[in-house]
């Protein structure tokens, strides 16, 4: 295919999956051949429709490949995302300062979910966990369907859950007395009374 699939859908390369899906549905409705009464138009619409479908499929395949391989998929040829691939590679190699410089070079209005995600990864690597969690939460908010973001956020949160459950076990504090305690105490008291010749609970 010779056209930029992002341009076909009219979205920016770092748009979230949700945005792309939305744009795709919009275009699909617009170009649906059934909308056209005229035969010529119908053919044109069918062509457009095909183009849109192809573009959507391409983006989807790129993105799923990118996720599996950590970003080395088809991102590279497209300006906006190529920089994120670089950042990912830098982060993988723990070249944090360079990664941060690249992240900061991206202008504010182009900072989407992926930017937040990568910034969060960077924060986690330098131990700024609070900032990392907040960034990761923003990334998940911007792109709720992205499993990579979600998984990373979860693993960040869980890193501590294990420690708390494992290490802090100790003994549990006693929680007052239960119904069972009351009954057994009464029974004991009854036994004592019977020993002394009297009775506390008449039926036993």
């Amino acid at each position, binding site marked *: 295919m010779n056209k930029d699939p992002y341009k076909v859908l009219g979205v920016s390369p770092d748009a979230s999956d949700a945005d792309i899906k939305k744009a795709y549905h919009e275009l699909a409705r617009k170009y649906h051949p059934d909308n056209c009464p005229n035969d010529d138009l119908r053919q044109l619409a069918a062509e457009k429709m095909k183009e849109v479908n192809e573009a959507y499929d391409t983006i989807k395949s790129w993105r799923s490949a990118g996720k599996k391989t950590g970003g080395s998929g088809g991102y590279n040829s497209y300006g906006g995302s190529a920089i994120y691939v670089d950042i990912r590679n830098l982060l993988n190699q723990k070249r944090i300062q360079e990664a941060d410089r690249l992240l900061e070079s991206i202008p504010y209005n182009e900072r989407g979910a992926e930017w937040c995600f990568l910034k969060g990864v960077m924060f986690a690597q330098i*131990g*700024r*966990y*609070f*900032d*990392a*969690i*907040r960034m990761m*939460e923003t990334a998940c908010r911007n792109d709720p369907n992205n499993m990579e973001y979600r998984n990373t956020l979860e693993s*960040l*949160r869980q*890193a*501590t859950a294990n*420690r*708390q459950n494992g*290490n*802090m076990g*100790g003994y549990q*504090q006693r929680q007052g007395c239960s119904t069972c305690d009351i009954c057994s105490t009464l029974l004991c008291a009854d036994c004592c009374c019977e020993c002394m010749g009297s009775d506390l609970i008449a039926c036993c």
Partner: protein
Amino acid sequence: MFGYVRPRRSELKIKEFDYYRTVYCGLCHAEKKLSRRLRYSLSYDMVALALCRIGATGEQSTFQKCRCVAHPMKGRYCVACSPSLSYTASVAAILVYYKLLDDKEDEKGFRRLGARFMLGGARRAMKASPIPALNTLTKEKLDALYAAERAGAESVYEGASLFGELLGEIFAFDEGDTLSKDKKICLYEIGNRLGRFIYIVDAYADIAEDQKEGKYNPFVLSGEDTNDESFTTALINALDMELAAALNALDLLSVEDPGIDSIIRNILAMGLPDVAEKVILKKEKMKTPKEPRHE
């Protein structure tokens, strides 16, 4: 300095608690040797430092019975002054001195008067047992910290990492080469993580006051709703990670005395999480019958 670093008392064994108290009293007497006024600034944080140093150096504690103003009749058993204790007392003098210097500038009224009263004691204590290298180091780090705060650092971690570095250096400071390199690295990490923890918790605790008085506070600057559940859980999570790192370092430090190891572990795994929950979630996790008194 803040009194946050304390164990969860209900989880200490009695012998551990007794030992903790003897270190507390021993530190008080070590401070008294430097300056009588300095002992009023005694805090649990410094006891934790003393414990870590004693654990790392592996020095044997000897006990003696001492009387003091708080216990004039019966007296208390306390750890006899050892290199670790006198080092901790000197650190306390330095930290208190710079804290008071800062207070004298910032505070008003009685607090300022109190700061001026104590300042003399701290200054005398610093002269009594000087560690010039540590003094300049502390001054440098604190200056950097104040500069970052004045510049309005956006993230709480900028101040936290500076304060962490300061505590790390203090924990691992070693003039006479009595500690091995590995121990120093572990001590540095514990101090560093503790410092970061303390700074973040303290910043959160001061939100209301700083907001009122217009002082620097990173959480106020961020403009987020600091009482929001997602904010507080993220913060608790982040603090837990600092403590987890400190606990890892403690494992590597391999303190010989199991009692001391257990007390430090208690502080990191229970005492500090309790403090974080109390300050940030504003709840008491476990009611202890009586808070440990300042003695």
